[in-house]
């Protein structure tokens, strides 16, 4: 019991409960003192949730050092909490490797929850008419699925950026370790707030939360808006930290064009999350304000403009899709040379294409609004800018092809996931231009073709590279290697069934299946397709279950491995696994190119004092 209460997480959760109750009570009291009718549910719950989040942070203890600074007291700079063992994963550790693992676990938990929601509503879709969900339940699950999965992605990329960036650049930690811990821990209460919308009547707007619908939705939407706004801080501050780390903490001899490619993609991603994320927070807060105080930003009858919301929202949410994929594409570029045993083809071009995608990505948001009734003259310029993104993305693809060409290719589990990632992302990417061209978009918009497009892009650009990365770096993190057999079973369960599902999504979308509908017209003849899609969804999920079994099995039965499992040139593999607490004992010196495979005797890094 004492051990459990000493865990930061448990403390935080208890405090959050307390804080929520206090917040509601406080608000009600203030109203009563002001002589207003004391109970009004919506603002009370919003205030309660805000208090809850703050109390969570206090309870966990991530604010302690900052409070000390404010009080003018000194704090410890290099905290070593490794004596705590497993318990430090449940508390406010400052070690970027611990925080990386914390993010990873949170990401997997959220992916399971979001996936579970998908399985529920997919089961409902398997047949026409409503079987076991009500219309509102369907809408809530569908909307939450979208947002929970997106936050799961944000956590997943944060996991690998946190774990890897300092290791790859030879730093002992991130530039701002406390801020790093804060970025992670703010995400936990946000996720809880987001999910609590289920208990408050849900909401039926989809993940996009367009007003005026979101202004009329049940109270649950406030938790959605608030949860997303708060978790935005995780992204923003995480991005800030990554940029500062890359700029300031690189080993002295590591010039920008000798950084591992994943560092470039992290930089590009972080630029987007640092800046654009504020806009989703702002647009959601404006909806909250409209609901709470009647501020008519988006109410056309009172001088507002519903389209304004869409501009603000997509100004974040389009660049956000590149936040989702850039790290994944970075992982592909990082691992491909290892399994092909050849240098990464066109390193500089790939590095620059990440920045190119990120920057052009800021100019294309209007392609989500071709049918929205926005200013007519904007449609064609947005079409041009959107199609332009295909160019830097193409550079990546062609460079990967050239990397694989004449390599010595082997097929360990990470490589399989990488290959699936490439092919699936290609499907997602190639279904982009038909959306981007205005006149074909008029048919495709808000159909299942869009749903197919983005599941492909997200699976190819994130989910598969994410699993590749887990399999690849698992020995580095834990000192044990995941089972190849189970890994391959997982792969063959997930990849083909996912591809079938997504292709069917595109097929019925073209034929006229709308998205976000709980039930569909039998006359269109979609039922068999939906049934197959549901079965495929379950197979995909089974693959994820096999993954969890693999983790448990490896932790219980796996043999320790400490060496350079993949025969990689990357610095983190030049020291024994698992990674020592303060990373590299001796400073790292860059002596060659990062990916010079196939050039015997050459090395990328050595350590001070090493021959």
């Amino acid at each position, binding site marked *: 019991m004492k051990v459990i209460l000493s865990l930061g997480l448990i403390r935080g959760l208890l405090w959050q409960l307390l804080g929520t109750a206090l917040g509601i009570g406080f608000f009600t009291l203030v109203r009563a003192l002001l002589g207003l009718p004391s109970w009004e549910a919506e603002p009370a719950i919003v205030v309660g949730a805000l208090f809850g989040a703050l109390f969570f942070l206090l309870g966990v203890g991530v604010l302690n050092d900052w409070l000390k600074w404010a009080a003018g007291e000194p704090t410890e700079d290099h905290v070593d909490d490794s004596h705590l063992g497993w318990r430090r994963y449940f508390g406010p550790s400052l070690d970027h490797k611990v925080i990386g693992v914390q993010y990873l676990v949170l990401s997997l938990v959220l992916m399971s929850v979001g996936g579970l929601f998908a399985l529920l509503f997919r089961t409902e879709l398997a047949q026409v008419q409503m079987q076991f969900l009500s219309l509102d339940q369907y809408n809530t699950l569908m909307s939450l699925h979208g947002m929970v999965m997106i936050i799961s992605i944000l956590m997943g990329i944060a996991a690998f950026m946190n774990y890897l960036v300092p290791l790859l650049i030879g730093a002992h930690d991130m530039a701002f370790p406390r801020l790093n811990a804060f970025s992670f821990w703010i995400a936990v209460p946000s996720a809880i707030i987001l999910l609590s919308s289920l208990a408050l009547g849900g909401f039926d707007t989809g993940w996009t939360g367009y007003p005026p619908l979101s202004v009329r939705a049940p109270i649950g939407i406030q938790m959605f808006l608030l949860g997303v706004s708060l978790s935005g801080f995780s992204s923003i501050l995480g991005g800030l930290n990554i940029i500062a780390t890359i700029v300031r903490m690189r080993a002295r001899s590591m010039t920008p064009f000798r950084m591992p490619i994943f560092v470039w993609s992290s930089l590009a991603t972080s630029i987007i999350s640092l800046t654009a994320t504020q806009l989703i927070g702002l647009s959601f807060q404006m909806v909250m304000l409209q609901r709470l105080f009647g501020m008519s930003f988006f109410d056309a009858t009172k001088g507002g403009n519903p389209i304004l919301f869409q501009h603000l929202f997509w100004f974040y949410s389009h660049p956000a899709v590149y936040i989702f994929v850039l790290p994944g594409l970075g992982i592909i570029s990082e691992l491909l040379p290892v399994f092909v045993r050849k240098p990464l083809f066109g390193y500089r071009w790939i590095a620059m294409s990440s920045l190119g995608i990120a920057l052009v990505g800021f100019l294309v948001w209007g392609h989500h609004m071709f049918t929205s009734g926005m200013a007519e003259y904007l449609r064609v310029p947005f079409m041009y800018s959107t199609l332009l993104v295909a160019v830097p993305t193409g550079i990546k693809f062609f460079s990967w092809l050239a990397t694989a*060409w004449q390599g010595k290719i082997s097929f360990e589990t990470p490589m399989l996931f990488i290959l699936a990632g490439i092919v699936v992302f*290609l499907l997602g990417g*190639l279904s982009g231009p038909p959306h981007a*061209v205005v006149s074909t978009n008029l048919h495709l918009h808000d159909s299942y073709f869009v749903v197919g497009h983005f599941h492909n892009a997200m699976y190819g650009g994130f989910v598969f590279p994410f699993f590749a990365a887990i399999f690849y770096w698992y020995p580095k993190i834990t000192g044990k290697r995941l089972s190849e057999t189970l890994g391959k079973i997982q792969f063959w369960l997930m990849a083909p069934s996912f591809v079938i599902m997504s292709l069917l999504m595109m097929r019925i979308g073209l034929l006229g299946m709308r998205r976000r509908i709980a039930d569909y017209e039998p006359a269109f003849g979609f039922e068999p397709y939906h049934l197959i899609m549901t079965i495929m969804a379950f197979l995909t999920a089974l693959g994820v279950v096999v993954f969890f079994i693999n983790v448990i099995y490896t932790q219980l039965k796996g043999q320790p491995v400490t060496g350079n499992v993949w025969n990689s040139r990357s610095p983190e593999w030049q020291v024994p696994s698992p990674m020592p607490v303060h990373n590299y004992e001796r400073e790292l010196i860059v002596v060659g190119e990062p990916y010079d495979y*196939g050039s015997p005797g050459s090395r990328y890094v050595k350590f001070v004092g090493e021959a």
Partner: protein
Amino acid sequence: MRHFIVVALLVIACTFLTHTAITSIDILPRKASAQAIPIDHLFEIQLWLISFLFSLVTVTLAYSLIVFRRRPGDVSEGVHVEGNTRLEILWTVAPLVTVIALAYLGARSLSEVQRADPNALQVEVLGGQWFWSFTYPEYGVTSDELYLPVSKQALLRMTSLDVIHSFWVPEFRVKQDLLPGKITELRVTPTETGEYTLLCAEMCGTSHAYMVAPVKVVSQEEFMAWIEEKISQAKLDPVQRGRKLANQYCTACHSIDGSQKVGPTWKGLFGSLVTLEDGTSVIADEVYLRNAIANPNLQIRKGYPGNVMPNFGNILTESQIEDLVAYIRSIE
């Protein structure tokens, strides 16, 4: 060099194969409007492009995986090639040219889709949670089905009563959102008679899935006949007219058989004693019903959400509201 020739041939073969495979099934629904022609033409071009690029990448990749795979016992490394600037420039410029050409075609086809006919038939489209309503201002006719004469451009002037909805008939290929407080326009020229379904394509709340309406494209004569019939219908008895209106606007939320929906059932409503949100009770007489329809937030029924029922005072005429009251009164 041999490798390159083999791959090139395979890519070409695979492109044709993919294209044939995809076009062997009908990937798009029937084409039934003049606007669909340039759009489908563009789909066709994009299909070729996608088939080619997909084949290019997957065939090259698959070839590498098979031909250059590591044989058992081989521990050597791959060849040491770091890059090739000329190739990189090639695969930057070629896609650039392609996408610019594609965007140009897209802009041209868009202007064709938007081409306006000054003699277009005007239809006012109103969307609301969760119904469609169509008014033909030239004839003073309102309907819950969309009738369109074939081969004549229709100018749909659309607006929404509450949240954003979207007008989509897959066979027409075009789509346009309906915004509250604003009018958006869409032009369609049906080219084939027949029956279609109008789908609401923008998430609009609980019953979004069921926000559909029949679309009938008929010959000019049939269209005029239908208009005549509509005009004469207006002379039917009020309960009949009320039922029609109710089916169009109300039955998404109100039942007449006592079952629960978003709003209270109408079964036995007239003359009953209803309790309001503020605790008082009133008799549901004609005045109460009229207020409930034309100004629903005035008196909110206990146990039901306020602000949900749209204010129909702005949409329905006084006589239409009277018809509705007569109809509700007739439900035992």
